């Protein structure tokens, strides 16, 4: 909320500044800038070989199968029937994912602004059954960060990360 307000506020100031042609200094210095994934790549939902897990998120347990979300990348699937020897079974690549749930053999996941529905009856051959576009409002500011950042330009794609950067004329700032 605060982030949005400040974003709006700064945007308004930008507007006013341009209308009145008053010079307006924006923020310069160390901050964050978004890393984009081209929107066309959001459709690249598929199986990939199991890999080590990066930044994790939501967990889902189905019988002996543990589904672990990796932020913005996809879902890892483990068989944990034998706690001592867990098996890394599969990885579902789902670009820009941040959360999911499973019902029956269907997996529902967000992917930037879309809800993607995936049939996982065969863990090694997943299939997208549907995609509902433009229903999710992704977070447009760097999480757990106080400071200036380059505003998201949605025409450049989906934000899949935030990286440190030396910014000039940054128009966005977070205050937690």
């Amino acid at each position, binding site marked *: *909320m605060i982030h*949005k307000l400040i974003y709006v506020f700064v945007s308004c100031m930008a507007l006013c500044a341009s209308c009145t042609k008053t010079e307006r200094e924006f923020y310069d210095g160390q901050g964050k800038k978004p890393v984009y994934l081209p929107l066309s790549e959001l459709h690249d939902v598929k199986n990939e070989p199991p890999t*080590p*897990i*990066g930044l*994790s*998120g*939501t*967990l*889902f*347990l*189905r*019988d*002996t*199968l*543990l589904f*672990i979300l990796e932020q913005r990348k996809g879902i890892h699937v*483990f*068989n*944990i*029937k*034998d*706690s*001592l*020897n*867990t098996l*890394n*079974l599969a990885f579902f690549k789902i670009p820009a994912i*941040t*959360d*999911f*749930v*499973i*019902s*029956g*053999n*269907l997996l*529902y996941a*967000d992917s930037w602004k879309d*809800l993607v*529905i995936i*049939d996982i*009856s*065969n*863990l*090694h051959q997943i299939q997208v*059954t*549907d995609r*509902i576009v433009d*229903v*999710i*409002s992704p*977070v447009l500011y760097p999480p*757990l960060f*106080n400071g200036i950042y380059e505003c998201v330009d949605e025409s450049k794609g989906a934000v899949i990360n935030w990286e440190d950067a030396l910014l000039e004329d940054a128009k966005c700032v977070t*205050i*937690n």
Partner: protein
Amino acid sequence: MKKLLFSTCIALLCFACSEDSVSYLEGISGKSGSITRFAIYQDYMYLLNLNEVQTYDIKQKEHPVLVHQMPTDYGLETITVYDGTVFLGSTTSLYILDISNPAAPVIQSQSDRISDIGFSGCDPVAVKGNYAYSTIKVIENACGTISAASALVVYDIHDKSAPVVVGTYALNIPNGLGYKDNYLFVCDEGSDELLVYDITDPTHVVLTAYAVSITDPYDLIVDGQKMIVSSKTDFQIFDISDITQIKRLGQISK
């Protein structure tokens, strides 16, 4: 003999399949950890946007239909369904939603944490009987200093339209939570511990000595006699059949 060998191979093959992809069939339900924005209830799926609860009809599972959108304040973070009621954790409030018509949730109450108990923060909710347990995490205040205002908050929800705070217990940097019987588990990132509370009397929750050391625990799933705990560095599986002696069974490394 050859025939026998052949059929054994076939049987083994089938076994291999069932271990893997066929092992979960339609109807076997699963469970999420406590930190998630998606929930399933009967033929509906609920999805949280920052300031909105969306309801999808999933009778046709492969092709959900968005049937309802309910606006809320900004800051929705987690959802859980318990006994036909939806509980939402937001940065400012605990919401309780009536889903007697699951296609169109209605806000039954919204407890403002700031005015009720002086905290603002986030985080998940676990519900047992007539009590809701929620962790509230405040990492930094506006001045960028670490705040001590993180806590476990217990709500009496006998009256879902008017929950009452019946206890607050200081925590460091709490994350996910869950319970087994009368024991509540809380991931406390700040103290690097999985804390165990006795909730036999929800109005007098007692911290036990059964805590387990885990670096930066994030969320957990209780599954019968087992518990899975995620952390920044790994996923650990515990035997919780005896709470007084929680045993680590195995782990998945990152």
